């Protein structure tokens, strides 16, 4: 094996690569924010919501958790235009990530909610809190704290999984790597670089989420 690395051939494509990094960050920022919000709502609906809502949410969660991300992406991007819903590749990618993370985080958050003892609900009510206030302050926050590491992992997983959105021509980091590879054929160098960038992004994201956890859940003994 005599392979000489030549990273100089990537130089002229750096703007493409940089743009790809920004798009990946944008995707995960939107995907994680709305995905977790959707997940919390669904977790509430499945654990404590009205009886008619439970089967609907359960159906959504099972549908998403038992189908591949790529197929969901194709369904939204190539399928929905047939019934008149035309999304750009960025909208399609974001929507798919939100829907996907929503279903997974629903189950994670629900585990936290259902691990809350009945006494904790009653404690909230006995203090004169409404049902919503009890859910928000007494149930949800401690639940989130309990499942925060699992939720963080899921968000990182979705960020890494977002690599497939290049299939619908969304110009994320994977697209940039594939694009540069198709131009200069320097597969080894470019995927080496892309791997390093994904690694850095994942570690940074994990640390950010860790920091967010410390900020969200202060004054807790069991950190």
């Amino acid at each position, binding site marked *: 094996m005599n392979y000489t690395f030549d990273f100089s051939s990537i130089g002229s494509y750096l703007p493409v690569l940089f743009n790809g990094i920004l798009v990946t960050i944008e995707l995960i920022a939107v995907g994680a924010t709305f995905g977790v919000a959707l997940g919390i709502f669904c977790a509430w609906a499945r654990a404590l919501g009205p009886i008619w809502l439970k089967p609907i949410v359960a159906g959504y969660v099972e549908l998403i958790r038992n189908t591949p991300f790529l197929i969901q992406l194709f369904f939204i991007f190539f399928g929905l235009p047939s019934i008149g819903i035309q999304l750009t590749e960025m909208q399609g990618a974001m929507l798919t990530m939100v829907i996907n993370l929503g279903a997974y985080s629903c189950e994670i958050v629900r585990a936290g909610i259902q691990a809350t003892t009945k006494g904790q609900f009653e404690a909230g009510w006995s203090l004169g809190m409404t049902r919503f206030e009890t859910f928000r302050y007494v149930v949800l926050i401690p639940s989130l704290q309990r499942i925060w590491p699992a939720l963080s992992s899921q968000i990182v997983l979705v960020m890494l999984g977002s690599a497939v959105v290049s*299939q619908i021509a969304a110009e994320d980091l994977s*697209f940039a790597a594939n694009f540069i590879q198709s131009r200069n054929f320097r597969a080894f160098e470019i995927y080496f670089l892309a791997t390093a960038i994904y690694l850095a992004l994942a570690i940074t994201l994990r640390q950010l989420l860790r920091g967010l956890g410390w900020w969200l859940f202060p004054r807790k003994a069991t950190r």
Partner: protein
Amino acid sequence: MNRRMLISALALAAFAAAPLTASADALDDVMKSKVLKVAVPQDFPPFGSVSADMSPKGYDVDMANLIGKAMGVKVELVPVTSANRIPYLQTKKVELLISSLGKNPDREKVIDFSNVYAPFFNGVFGPKDLAVAKVEDLAGKTIGVTRGAVEDLKLTEIAPKDTTIKRYEDNNGTISAFLSGQVQLVATGNVVAAAILARNPPKKPEIKFLIANSACYVGMNKDEPKLMAKVNEIIAAARKDGSLNAIAQKWLAQDLPADI
């Protein structure tokens, strides 16, 4: 530096400085083993696709067999995608890359290209009511291409600045994008467009203009002068005795242009 970091650094250094062994001559290897391994596309009709009985077929496949026959060796076809074809060549899993390969200066730094073996009759296609007659008319339009294909390289070079080029992973993605209306136009081979038309879709791709001066080359590793000479010799002979033209007639339904 703690011990773990030192070990990882050493491992990385060892990996980067992999042993340099003298590489044998590819043509000698082929003649000795009597097997020529050729990478061909599997998702790019008419150059390479999978037929109903799962065997590969197309212009590139016939070309591979032609070269194998002229060299008197058995041909082993290796289906590849546009993403993995170069690594296959570089890691010597194949000796030749016949996969409707276009060339550009960056690519020429990495691998060598033979003489032209095929023309590329590709064009820009779109619905009837969209007025596009030449490349300047693409201004402000959205067009889908297959990433890294000849038409992608060419359009990137010649299309107006405000044309949005969407690059899909493979040919099927490009076609789906056009049929679902995600792009207004699509650049692809005329035979691909004809195949779409044959299925009578609601959006009918019509030829708008041809992307001129595209050609395909056989790719091989650098520093293989004997293999290069052999392949060029076979291409020239096939051109002369009409067998290359027969392949063009079969898959592209036209004669080879005079400049090939």
